């Protein structure tokens, strides 16, 4: 932001470098704000976009994802103190999903760490974190700068995404393994490609200079051809991320930096992210609190639910028995999964109901032509993810 731009509160939502392309293709003119940018919620219909993700290739504008460049001699030590997993295991050219906590072991946010080179990392998060990142930098020789506006980003996801990139001329893209990054060239345009995504499917994320953004968008749409590239909005993405069992801040948890009421913070252990917490790597913020919690055993846990029937259990309260006497939790995110043909949900359940195989009852409200009906639906606690196709890991991917 230049020094003479108007004050922040007077600015409308920012436009990403892909905005003009997206606006031209957005048939229902459905935009939502995301991290200060206006982004597409739905281009055509949610169903059409959903099936495109699972059956062809899709473009999703990731530019509003907040990006920080973290560099300096202490960058690794700094990140290891910041996040709960061992960043030393993420070598140059690799990406890792990670979460970070406050002192009490409550989740502040999740994101991905890219190791671009020795002592140079990029942290991508859904929300702005600079204050916490700078607080965490006290005592470390590290530079932290926000580079969100310097990098345009697109997610290309779906079974034909590798084929599309090959047609775009990214030679060797098929050798890129999950959570690996590579530098590619498309004509004169340099691209950093990571085999990452939020769909649980085969897919890539493309990071580029904003100046190249529109040209590359056009090239990707053209390269689609019979492989069918289509842009998608946030609503379709939300369906596939529930299938993949991924969390969204403010839907599945509220950042510990934003909760107002006591007891609304969530720890990674409660959110089913214990696999991301490495107690053996040395100290990190929240470690002592999480160790205590681990010894106590979590009081609640985020789990997957397989709900009977086909009506999504949006925001349903969950009960221990059909009569609805004892409340044991509530649904965070829910959707009908067209691919799994299952009615799925992510729910927060109190002990001991979160054990896999437990049965709880979801109190679902249905609006049928303006008449509200209530259903008690049996729900089974199941392992996440709900959908994990082999192709997401296959290297090289099959040529769909």
């Amino acid at each position, binding site marked *: 932001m230049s020094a003479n731009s108007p004050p922040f509160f007077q600015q409308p939502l920012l436009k990403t470098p892909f905005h003009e392309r997206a606006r031209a293709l957005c048939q229902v003119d459905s935009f939502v704000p995301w991290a200060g940018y206006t982004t597409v919620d739905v281009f055509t219909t949610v169903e059409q976009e959903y099936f495109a993700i699972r059956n062809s290739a899709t473009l999703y504008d990731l530019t509003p994802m907040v990006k920080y460049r973290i560099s300096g001699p202490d960058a690794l030590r700094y990140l290891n*103190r910041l996040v709960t997993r061992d960043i030393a295991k993420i070598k140059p050219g690799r990406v890792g999903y990670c979460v970070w906590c*406050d*002192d009490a072991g409550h989740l502040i946010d999740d994101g991905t760490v890219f190791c671009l080179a020795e002592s140079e990392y990029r942290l991508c998060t859904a929300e702005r974190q600079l204050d916490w990142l700078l*607080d965490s930098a006290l*005592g*470390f020789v590290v530079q932290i700068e926000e580079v969100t506006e310097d990098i345009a980003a697109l997610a290309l996801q779906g079974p034909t995404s590798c084929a599309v990139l090959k047609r775009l001329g990214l030679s060797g893209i098929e050798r890129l393994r999950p959570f690996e990054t590579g530098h590619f060239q498309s004509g004169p345009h340099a691209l950093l490609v990571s085999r990452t995504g939020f769909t649980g499917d085969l897919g890539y994320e493309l990071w580029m200079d904003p100046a190249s953004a529109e040209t590359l968008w056009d090239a990707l749409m053209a390269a689609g051809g019979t492989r069918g590239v289509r842009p998608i909005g946030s609503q379709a993405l939300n369906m596939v991320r529930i299938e993949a069992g991924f969390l969204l801040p403010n839907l599945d948890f509220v950042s510990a930096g934003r909760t107002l009421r006591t007891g609304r913070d969530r720890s990674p252990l409660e959110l089913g992210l214990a696999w991301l917490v490495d107690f053996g790597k040395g*100290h990190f*913020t929240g470690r002592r609190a999480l160790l205590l919690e681990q010894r106590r055993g979590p009081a609640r846990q985020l789990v997957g639910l397989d709900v009977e029937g086909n009506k999504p259990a949006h925001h349903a309260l969950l009960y221990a028995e059909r009569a609805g006497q004892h409340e044991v939790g509530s649904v965070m995110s829910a959707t009908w999964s067209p691919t799994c043909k299952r009615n799925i949900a992510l729910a927060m359940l109190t002990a001991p109901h979160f054990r896999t195989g437990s049965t709880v009852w979801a109190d679902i409200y249905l609006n049928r032509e303006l008449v509200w009906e209530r259903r008690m639906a049996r729900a089974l606690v199941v392992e996440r993810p709900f959908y994990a196709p082999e192709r997401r890991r296959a290297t090289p991917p099959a040529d769909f």
Partner: protein
Amino acid sequence: MSAAAPGSSYDVLVIGAGHNGLVCAAYLARAGRKVLVLEASSGVGGAAVTHEFVPGFRVSSCAHLLHLMPEWLGRELSLDRHGLEFAATQLPTVALSQERPPLILSAGAQSGLPEPDGSAYLEYRATMARFGATLQPLFERAPPRLGTNALADRAGLLRLGWQIRRLGRPRMRELLRIGAMNVYDLLQEHFSDAGLQGALAFDAVLGTNFGPRSPGTVLTLLCRLAAQGASGAGGLRLPRGGLGAFSVALAGAAGAAGAAIRTSAPVERILVKNDRACGVQLRSGEQIGAGCVVSSADPKNTLLGLLGAEHLDAGFVRRVHHLRSRGLAAKLHLALKGPPRFTDVPAAHQGGRLLIAPSMDYLERAYNSTKYGEYSAAPPMEIVVPSLHDPALAPLGAHVLSAIVPYLPYQIGGGWDNGRQRCIGTLMATLEQYAPGISGLVEGAELLTPQDIEQRFHIRGGHWHHGELAFDQFFMVRPVPGATQYSTPMAGLYLCGAGAHPGGGVMGYAGRNAARRILGLRAAA
């Protein structure tokens, strides 16, 4: 809690041989712990030392009076047997004035005050002493924590409530009314004499970053009175040989109890194993293991310097980082050819505690300058001439003058290296107004700015109290939430210095409370 870690020969390492470190070591050793005290300087005492600033002239480097240490501490540690003597006791406070004869103030008497302030003064002293005595028991133990179910915490809170309730309804109401006030308003309520107000307000702001009108200055005054009230009948005392002699006596007591003391042994870092402090590494590279480590260094040095942010949570580090610990008090030392003569001060009182604080506005103006990195052309001072009582501090017939100068900022425009002489000139001009001819007696002068105090005594920020004494850094949240009750987030690492409750001043409570805390934890294990 385990005993000494395998391979270590000590139960406890104490970082810093300041008075709190020595007191802590003495109590731990008396309880049978194997203790080693590690001191960076070549002698014991920390900031409570006597140094030679001009050949033949010696002076207490920071605090120059002993009046806050509880009487029982001297008794319990038999400090007299270890050489502590007083060259003078019950020094009167002499409020200097250019306009009239000085006021002579002591606990139970005054002279020079017009009525009704004269009798109001005695009543005020009695009431404030009573309030101080109400708070004093809080100093003797670890403060209670809020929000726990622990019996000790609840008992501590009940005790506090009971102490205050015991004052009786009118006095209790008065204490609660004035507790968070500023001392300017309080003294306006009681007195009209500007000189008296200035002298009494001086005690509230000495060593702080406050002016008389700053919020919380009644609290700082009450804390001083609380400690003073328990320090015994000696009142304001001058240890023979300066404060350094007091520290030597403490070291003697610690040594006699079995504690070992190593000087010139600066600690470089605190060693951590399995998320527990297990020893220290000296700057020489030598590593010393122990069951636990107690630091009398200031909280920033201890936690951010010696331990390191990487062993602590980010939110906690931010709190420690923001601990307000900039010093604002300096020290002026003068080597004088002969005794100074303060105008109109009776000969018997020339050796008293002389205050240049002619009004509260004088103090407030001096404080105002410091907000902008400047100092006042009319600075306040607390002056003693210890050689009048203790001739050995100076060559025969010569004298040393020791003055605490509040309100000299940590940093001044152009830097202290360039501004030092000019500042000494300002201070001498001020002294000259109250003791004409003093400049002609000066053979040598030394000014210790907050920066000098920071470097010389290894106190980050150069604050005498290792951290401002203010409501948000006081009692159950001192020095910061997460490091209260003498423990820290790092298992096996404790704080026993002025940064811990009840704070700075040569008192020794923090050292003793920390020792009791460590012993209590062990007993419970």
